[in-house]
């Protein structure tokens, strides 16, 4: 790790050089900071096009007999797919609503990972925290019947408390025993997965008369109000609030300064008199709380307002990509969340209209993260000059803690 902070900051030139500079390796200018992610997305889309082309079974059969026709079909296949991706994400007001709607849990979960990154903790357990937080929110949602103005905040608070506590287990274990948070959070994910399956089949949650893991619906007063008949709902506003809160916490508050100091150099923070063990617990709790809100949004932000098995889907893992893409800065996470939301919304359209399975979006995401995490790859492809200070990305140092 480099000890001296890089001379010039990017967007977050407040105080410490955060994860932003250290990870990016892009160095000084905002131009470069945007260039690499943009090229990463572009490259991912180009590779995605190849994947679409070589998996088109019907067209592949024609290549031998009629290459011209096959080429045309391939091109139009790619064009249709990406057109659907575009139309489905920003092509109409409804598409934009879908994009923002899909971005909501991604932003919240991405913030959760980002807070961890800034403090040098790798929270892979966002999925589990979403599940636990979401279940707590759901329970408040169907147990009480209150005015909406009280009910929704209560739901969110329950999600915050339970998501935070679930994540704090990993923080506590790291502080107390040195157990690496990557291992413990992965394990807690699986435990949460089975725990909610059990809960969903227990008499507390299960819809009467059902045998499969499905919960009672939340009371209407706990449903996140939507914008007209669009799916976009109050959850997006909460996510924007969370972006502001994380920015304030990390760059304007003492505790956030301590978080970043621990992330920058745990021993240094310790000798400066900070209680590193407590900070680990606090960071995980904040991270889990954000994830918990994301989980509540997964249930109370969409029909049928019920809990089902693994309702968090792959959001917890997308969140890692988001935090990397957004350089762990709240605004970066917001932008990255909107991008991935667009991929999601567009991906659904692509699946419906062009018959391309939405899993392609996962492949695109993986390609984007690789190129963000290894900017040398992008620079090698596009022959961009390498900035002076080149550091690899290391946020984890083995399992020992």
């Amino acid at each position, binding site marked *: 790790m480099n000890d001296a902070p890089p001379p010039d900051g990017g967007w977050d030139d407040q105080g410490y050089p955060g994860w932003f500079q250290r990870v990016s390796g892009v160095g000084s200018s905002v131009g470069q900071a945007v260039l690499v992610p943009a090229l990463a997305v572009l490259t991912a889309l180009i590779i995605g096009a190849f*994947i679409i082309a070589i*998996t088109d*079974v*019907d067209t592949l059969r024609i290549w031998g007999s009629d290459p011209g026709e096959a080429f045309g079909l391939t091109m139009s296949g790619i064009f249709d797919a990406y057109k659907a991706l575009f139309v489905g994400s920003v092509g109409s007001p409804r598409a934009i609503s879908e994009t923002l709607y899909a971005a909501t849990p991604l932003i919240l979960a991405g913030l959760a990972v980002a807070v961890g990154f800034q403090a040098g903790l*790798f929270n*892979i357990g966002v999925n589990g925290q979403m599940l636990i937080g979401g279940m707590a929110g759901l329970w408040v949602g169907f147990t009480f019947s209150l005015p909406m103005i009280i009910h929704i905040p209560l739901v969110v608070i329950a999600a915050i408390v339970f998501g935070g506590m679930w994540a704090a287990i990993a923080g506590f*274990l790291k502080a*107390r*025993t*040195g*157990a*690496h948070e*990557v*291992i*413990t959070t*992965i*394990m*807690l994910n*699986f*435990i949460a997965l*089975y*725990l909610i*399956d*059990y809960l969903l*089949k227990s008499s507390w949650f299960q819809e009467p008369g059902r045998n499969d893991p499905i919960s009672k619906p939340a009371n209407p007063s706990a449903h996140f109000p939507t914008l007209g008949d669009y799916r976009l709902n109050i959850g997006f506003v909460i996510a924007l609030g969370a972006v502001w809160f994380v920015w304030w916490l990390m760059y304007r508050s003492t505790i956030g300064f301590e978080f970043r100091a621990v992330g920058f150099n745990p021993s240094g923070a310790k000798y400066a*008199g*900070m*209680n590193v063990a407590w900070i680990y617990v606090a960071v995980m709790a904040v991270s889990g709380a954000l994830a918990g809100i994301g989980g509540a949004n997964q249930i109370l932000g969409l029909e049928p307002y019920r809990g089902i098995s693994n309702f968090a889907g*792959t959001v917890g*893992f997308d969140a*890692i*990509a988001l935090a*990397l893409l957004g350089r762990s800065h709240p605004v970066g996470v917001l932008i990255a969340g909107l991008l991935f939301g667009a991929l999601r919304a567009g991906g659904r359209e692509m699946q419906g209209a062009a018959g*391309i*399975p939405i*899993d*392609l*979006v*996962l*492949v*695109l*995401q*993986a*390609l984007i*993260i*690789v190129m963000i*995490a*290894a900017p*040398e*790859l992008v620079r090698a492809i596009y022959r961009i000059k390498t900035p002076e200070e080149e550091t*690899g*990305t*290391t*946020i*984890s*140092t*083995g*399992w*020992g803690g």
Partner: protein
Amino acid sequence: MTTATSTSDVPVRTRATPQERRATGVGIVLIVLGVFVFWAFGLGSEPGADATFNLSLPGATFENITWVVSARWLAFAVAVILAFLGGMILRRSNVRWTNLALAIGLILFALAFLTWAAGGKSFSLVGMLRSTVLLSVPVTLGAMTGLMCERVAVINIAIEGQLLTAAFVGTIVGSAWGIWAGLVGAMLTGALLGAVLAVLAIKFRIDQIIAGVVINIFALGLTSFLARRVLSEAPDLNSPGRFTAFKIPILGDIPVLGPMFFEHNLFVYATFILVIVLHFGLFYTRWGLRSRSVGEHPKAADTVGINVYRTRYRNVILGGFIAGFGGAFFTLAQVSRFEENLTAGIGFIGLAAMIFGRWMPLGVFGAGLVFGFALALQQKLGILGTPIPSEFLSMTPYIVTIIVVAGVVGRARPPAADGKPYIKD
């Protein structure tokens, strides 16, 4: 922030060593388990309920060996033994026997639990143990992959992705050109992903955990995408056939142990051999010494002329072959067709087994058997219809892992340089 240290003038007390504290903890755990067994499995079972364990499989050479035992009395006996073991550990704080006592205690606990669950019914104990061995195979192979990488200080959490992709390629190549080709294809796939991880981690020095996460996302996305887009169009590419079980002559006829260990498919036998070869290789050969030195102190290794980068590349790619072999187990031996996310977290259990087994092949195999037992239990208890929800059994491997990583069962110490990129001066 920090509270003032007011204890500085208090005379220093001799504190228990970590080992002694652990021994105390283990002693207490054993006694608690004993009380629990007495209450739940002893008093909690029907007074006259006998559990009938079948110790042979139908059609075996020695057929119909059964063991009938009263669930209640066995539980009482186990409770007494557990309490005795716990008491011994507590009284003597004898550090040396802690692990042994814990292992015996846990095996007895499992036995009491099974007897309780099978009370009044007939249960194929051998069948259960046989699936334990079978299900431990992918876990063990995944763990061996992780071990190969981490012994040279490359963290591999992409095991899951390697298994999944290899399983996928195995089914396609196997369907097109036969199962042996499928096996080769799967192994090459595992090795290819290993090479990708190695390049990202060693050449580009990306954070190794991020590299692993990326490979996992990529593997899940690509295989699901292709399964929906290609395999659904061409189902003939998703029926590779399978490696069937065959009995080893003589050894397979031993009662209990025969069907448990020597009546399996190729993958199981290969795993036995691999475990022994790797253990020997790692601790008794030049290759092993060099690999370990690269994992513990790359700079020193470099100084004495070991090529750190080449050693890392080689071991990570070799590990990939093992993962590919493990992936093939799913589609070429277990189910003989690919489904989305077929591996369902086995790679992560493998990671846990690697830590549980403390980065040693024999230990890892033992850990694999423990996790295999938990997986088998999950399958078989459904048949017996116990009141315990299967979800809690499914959780067990993960909870055990957290307990292990948290050092409750002794500190698991990874290779010293694990996860750190090496930069040659």
